[in-house]
């Protein structure tokens, strides 16, 4: 018994390592072909850091901090914050009922409603919020409203998926108990589902704010309001020192926002004793 076993194992091992070798070879060849196809020349890599260095040193440095202190620019920063705020609130408010509809274990309309909500959330997430912004601009013209709408969709896509996952992982017993007691779907949601996911939802909401705010800083790039427009204009006019200042400001704002939301999340964790979000 053991001799055939050993021989078989030997053969299997040999086949496995051959397969692994072929797979590596194919991957390498595929990589090389792809680089050829995309017209990426690896020798440019060698000079990349050199060029990037001189570029940053001569054109982006020193950043024109005076530019970002101008009142008109500061106004756009405030506009960015406004947009992120509205989009996060609206998006979260819409995402909760959508997630309820889309969750397989709690949906009040398990047929068409569930599929429609799933398609909506997936679609909102699959298309980048910048593309949504352009679509809205095509109909509504330049301005803040298309930006807010695009960010709202982005927020629904992002938070909606997490909400659905959260609802789908709840303990079904309280829900079933309420259904058995004859509660309507709305009552089941508010008293059976929501109490179980409330803390997680707040955590996800705070996390979503980070994501939406990050997008809001650039969503105006194609004219959807906020500071993104200034980024576009200075970049188009090759005013790299101003671009540098704007990028640094964006990074600083995002970091500040992340620090605040991190503290909010830890405070929430401390109060409720629950782990709020894995990431």
């Amino acid at each position, binding site marked *: *018994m*053991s*001799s055939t*076993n*050993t021989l078989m*194992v*030997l053969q*299997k*091992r040999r086949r496995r*390592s051959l397969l692994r070798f072929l797979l590596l070879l194919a991957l390498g060849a595929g990589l090389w072909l792809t680089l050829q196809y995309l017209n990426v020349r690896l020798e440019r890599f060698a000079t990349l850091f050199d060029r990037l260095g001189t570029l940053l040193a001569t054109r982006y440095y020193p950043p024109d901090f005076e530019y970002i202190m101008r009142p008109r620019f500061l106004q756009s920063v405030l506009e960015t914050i406004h947009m992120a705020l509205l989009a996060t609130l609206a998006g979260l408010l819409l995402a909760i009922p959508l997630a309820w509809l889309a969750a397989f274990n709690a949906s009040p309309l398990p047929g068409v409603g569930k599929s429609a909500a799933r398609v909506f959330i997936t679609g909102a997430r699959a298309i980048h919020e910048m593309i949504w912004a352009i679509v809205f601009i095509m109909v509504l013209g330049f301005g803040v409203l298309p930006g807010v709408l695009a960010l709202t969709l982005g927020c629904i896509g992002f938070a909606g998926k997490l909400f659905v996952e959260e609802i789908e992982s709840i303990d079904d017993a309280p829900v079933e108990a309420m259904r058995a007691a004859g509660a309507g779907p709305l009552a089941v949601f508010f008293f059976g589902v929501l109490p179980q996911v409330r803390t997680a939802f707040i955590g996800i909401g705070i996390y979503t704010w980070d994501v939406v705010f990050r997008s809001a800083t650039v969503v105006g790039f194609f004219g959807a309001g906020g500071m993104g427009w200034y980024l576009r204009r200075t970049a188009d006019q090759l005013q790299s020192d101003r671009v540098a200042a704007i990028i640094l400001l964006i990074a600083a704002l995002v970091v500040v926002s992340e620090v605040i939301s991190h503290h909010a999340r830890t405070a929430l964790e401390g109060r409720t004793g629950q782990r709020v979000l894995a990431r």
Partner: protein
Amino acid sequence: MFESSEMAQLRFVPARHAAPAAALAEPLLQVENLRVRYPGAPEDVLRGVGFTLAPREFVAVIGASGSGKSTLLRAINRLVEPSAGSVRLGDIEVTALQGGALRRCRRRMGMIFQEFNLIERYRVLDNVLLGRVGSQQALRALFSIYPATMIAEAAALLDRVGLGAFLDQRVDALSGGQRQRVGICRALFQAPELLLVDEPTSSLDPRIANDIMAQIRDLAQESGVAALCNIHDVALARQFASRVIALRDGIIVHDGPFDELDEAALGGIYAATDRSRL
């Protein structure tokens, strides 16, 4: 099991241990005045330990937890750096070795761990083969390429401990006892002269502790390997070892046959709660 004649050659035959009779007189391992202090600790864990181990000898090390058993084993193969003293394996001073020389010396000592310390995602056979990875050519080792005879040898060894049918399974699919058997095979596959065995049954179901201990002793004797075996359980030590070294607070308080230990001596070695296990 090995009826077919070609496979008979694949039976695990320890090549290196056909030690000449004269060597028996010389100790395999000589430990002198070994001291270990962990960085930042106020006191030594080992406070001057000394003993010798003859080739093929099977010695149990007993003592309460915290007595320094584990540290002693780890100081012998320098997983823990001794702060003073000497460890000699054959005629090599282990404490003086560095880099490649230390690695070559470690290959002569196999280690069996309390928690098996296997590569969970590797198959059983690959774990055993890793026992000799250090003596493989660097490039071959990188791609886990081993000669067919070596693979057959590892398979035979696994057969010997009853894991022949499992050698193609991933370790994380095995039970604790099976894992420890893989660990035993890995250590023996190194073809060592000395086995350092660190509480091999403490993470296992007590019912299979006897089997595992018997397997370690039998395999060690069969392949002519000396073994230094930490055992917390005094009953197991009595059953398997003719010579017992007892540690207490980093000092050897007994070295000799188990029978010379009386109740009072054991009471000194173990705390009251441990004595109930006798």
